[in-house]
Structures are given as C-alpha cells and as structure tokens.
C-alpha cells in the first residue's frame, strides 16, 4: 500500500533518515520504535509530504507522492502535539475539516470517537482553551473522522488518561480488523504490544529490522515485548 525506497533525509549535517526502505501492507498495525531523535517523526512526515526527502521515493498504491496531494484523502494523521487555530470552537473545527475535505457524504463519516470521548458536551469550547489531553482527544477524533484507509498516529496515547487511552487502543484494533493500515509510534511498549502486529525499529536514521511481534519474541526467547526490545538494544550496543 505504501512503499518506501531508499529514503534519505538530512537536516544540515545531521543524517535523520539513512537509506530507509519498507513496504507497509493493509491490515497491519506497524509500530515504529526507536530512541529519541532516531527519525521516527521525520519518517512519518515524509509520508505525509511535509518533509521533502533528498533521495529515494515513496509510493502510495504505486504512485509517487512527491508534489502529489490527492493521496492524502486516504490518510488520517494524528500529530505528536495537536495544533489547531485557537479562536475556533471544536464544532466549527470539525465542520471546517469536513467542508475542506468536501466530505458531506455522511456514510463515510466515523463519529465513534466523538461519542466515546464525549466531545459533544464541549462542542462550543474554543480549542485555545482546551487542556493538552482534551486536545489529543479532539485530534484523535479528527484523525478517524473521515474513515481513512491509512492511519498515522504519532505518540497517540501521551497525555491521554488511562480510560481514553484504552478507548483509542480499542478503536485501533477495530480499524485494523477492517483491513486498514495503521502506523503508530510510541515509547510505551506495553501499548504497542497490545495493538501492533509488526515492529519496525529505527536507530540513528537506519532501519534496523521489521519483524512481527511473535517472531521477535521467539527469536529473543522472551515473553514480553518490553524485554525482547531491551535485549535487542543491548545486543546492538555490544
């Protein structure tokens, strides 16, 4: 569905992505993990076309995404930090996005998260007055709203209370069952273990491995993902 070939990107002298190639297929939840500054967010933003790679290509359904824009209607993106225009109410924000996406066809609108997060109660609050966690909830609701084929979630559970995080994780599993591709980054490995089918590990811009979770556990002979990953990281450091 999304294939990335030999992606290179550097900011100044710093190499952020170094020859990354991967195929992402529908029906998978791929967890993107790696230490801080390993290029996870840059990788995600390259797929969205916000960061322009120096070399390599990214194809969506076989078509190059550089300077393309229509493919983004199939992607829902939840950024690390939700940023909205400040003077606008939650309801206005959602209506505006529907309008901009030209999506008044109600069949394709998925308002499940709006219901589950109880956002209708605070529909008339301005986004500038919301707490960090509530902003994340609005951002998550917005990401799933258009029922996109690909979901890209950058540390979605940070700032969410345990109940909301649980709701979000259930939603992710549900969408996976519908055959969607989910790309998720997180530092909370227990969250990843619950939702992910595959793990891709980035280290200093290099893609170290892509493996299914079972395979990882088998190879390291560990029961929890947490221990398996720690073991791998220690082996790498030796």
């Amino acid at each position, binding site marked *: 569905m999304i294939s990335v070939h030999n992606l290179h990107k550097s900011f100044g002298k710093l190499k952020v992505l170094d020859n990354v190639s991967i195929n992402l297929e529908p029906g998978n939840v791929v967890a993107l993990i790696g230490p801080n500054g390993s290029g996870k967010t840059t990788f995600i933003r390259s797929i969205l076309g916000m960061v322009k790679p120096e070399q390599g290509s990214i194809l969506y359904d076989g078509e190059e995404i550089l300077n393309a824009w229509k493919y983004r209607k199939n992607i829902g993106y939840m950024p690390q930090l939700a940023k909205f225009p400040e003077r606008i109410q939650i309801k206005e924000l959602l209506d*505006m996005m529907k309008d901009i996406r030209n999506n008044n066809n109600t069949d394709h609108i998925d308002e499940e998260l709006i219901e589950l997060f109880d956002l209708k109660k605070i529909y008339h609050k301005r986004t500038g007055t919301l707490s960090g966690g509530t902003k994340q909830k609005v951002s998550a609701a917005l990401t799933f709203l258009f029922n996109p084929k690909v979901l890209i979630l950058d540390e979605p559970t940070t700032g969410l209370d345990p109940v909301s995080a649980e709701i979000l994780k259930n939603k992710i599993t549900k969408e996976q069952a519908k055959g969607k591709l989910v790309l998720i980054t997180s530092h909370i490995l227990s969250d990843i273990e619950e939702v992910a089918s595959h793990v891709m590990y980035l280290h200093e811009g290099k893609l170290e491995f892509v493996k299914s979770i079972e395979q990882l556990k088998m190879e390291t002979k560990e029961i929890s993902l947490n221990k398996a990953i720690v073991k791998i990281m220690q082996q790498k450091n030796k």
Partner: protein
Amino acid sequence: MRRILKYVMFDILRNRFVIGYCLFIMLITFGLLSLEEGSSKSTLSLLNIVLLVVPLISIVFATIHFYNSYEFMELLLSQPVRRSTILYSEYFGVSCSLSVAFAIGMGVPLIFLNQGLVSIYLLLSGIVLTFVFVSIALLGAVNSKDKARGIGTSLLLWFFFTAIYDGLVLLILFSFSDYPIEKYLLAFISLNPIDLARVAILLQMDTAVLMGYTGAVFSEFFNSWEGLLFSSGLLLLWAILPMLLTVRIFKRKDL
C-alpha cells in the same frame, strides 16, 4: 481554494483589526478633507497616507497573520490540499480584506467631499499597494521561522521602500547632477512600488509643474497611455512576482 479562502477571511473578520483599520482611514480622510478646503493640499496629505500608512499596515498585518495561521496551515498540510492553495488563500484572504477595508475607509469620504480623477488614482494606488506589500510580506515570512525576525524583516523592508530607497536615489541625483540622468531616474523609480504610485498620482495634480524639467520628462511619459500602462504593469508585477517566488519556496520547504 474557495473553501480555504473563506476560512481565512472568516478568521480575519473575527479579530476585528480590519474593521478598526477601515474606521481609522475613514476618520483621517474625513478629517483631512474637511480641515483643508483647497483640494490639492488635502490630496497631498491623503497621498501620504496611501504611500506610508497603507504599505506599513499591509506588510505588518500580513506578516503577523501568516505566523498566527501557522497552526491552521499545519493542520491543512496533512489534508488533501495543495500547498500552493494554502498560500494563495492566505494571500488573497489578507490582501482582499485589507484593500476592501481601505477602499471603503477612503472611498466613502472621497465620494462625498472630493470627486475627481485624482481620487480614483488615490484609491487604485492604495489597493494595488496593499496587494504589493502583502506579497512582499509573505516572501519575508516564508523565509524565516522566527516570528520576531519575520516582523523585523517586514518593518525593515517597509522602511527601505519608503525612506532608504529615496535617499539612495537622491544621492545618485546629487552625484550626477551635471549629467542628463532623467531617463535613468525613471528606471530607478520603476524599481520601487511606492515611488511609482507617488509619481503617477503627483502628475495628475497641478503641483507637477513645480517639478521642473524632471517633472516635464515624467509628465510626458506618465501621462501618455504607454506610461500609464507601463506604471500599472510594473505595479502589478510587484504584486505578482514576490508571491510566485514565495509559492516556489513554500512548495520545497520542510514543514
């Protein structure tokens, strides 16, 4: 494009600055026109507003608005929207609302108190200068991520076009006063949108006589059809070229 433009305009109207700007211009215009009876004296004062206040407000407001809409733009970038659409909406949203505010603010008093060709020139120059300076503002803003630096750059650009440039032209004029440099002066003036607007309006007034030989050269040039076409064409270029460059830079930028 239309949809995003709608939200940009909506956002601008909401913060009420533009309405204040309109009232401010209206108040000053009414004041000047009723204070000074002689129409050419008050027109000169109005000319200064068009040449100084309009560019200043346009360049500063457009720069600040660009930085304040950064969140909105980031939100749009992950949506199926072209980058150029986002930027053009910002450009037309800001410059249309500012020029409508200006046209109402200065136009209404002019209709009542000072009808004539010069008034039409004043209004048209104000509107074109708004577009020119919004376009220059966006070029400055897209090149620096830091808000304070961006606003500083835009103020400096305004100061350059209103004062420094004229100083340089005067300096050249003095140094080469022994040579016939009127034609070159014409070229220099063409490179500054504010000068272009100033000369075009001054020549419509009786005061053009006071400009001596240079005035005669200009008058001959600017009052002909070719001259008018030339100066308005150049002003339009000033509104279009910086914007095209901005879009080019914006398209290739990492955001």
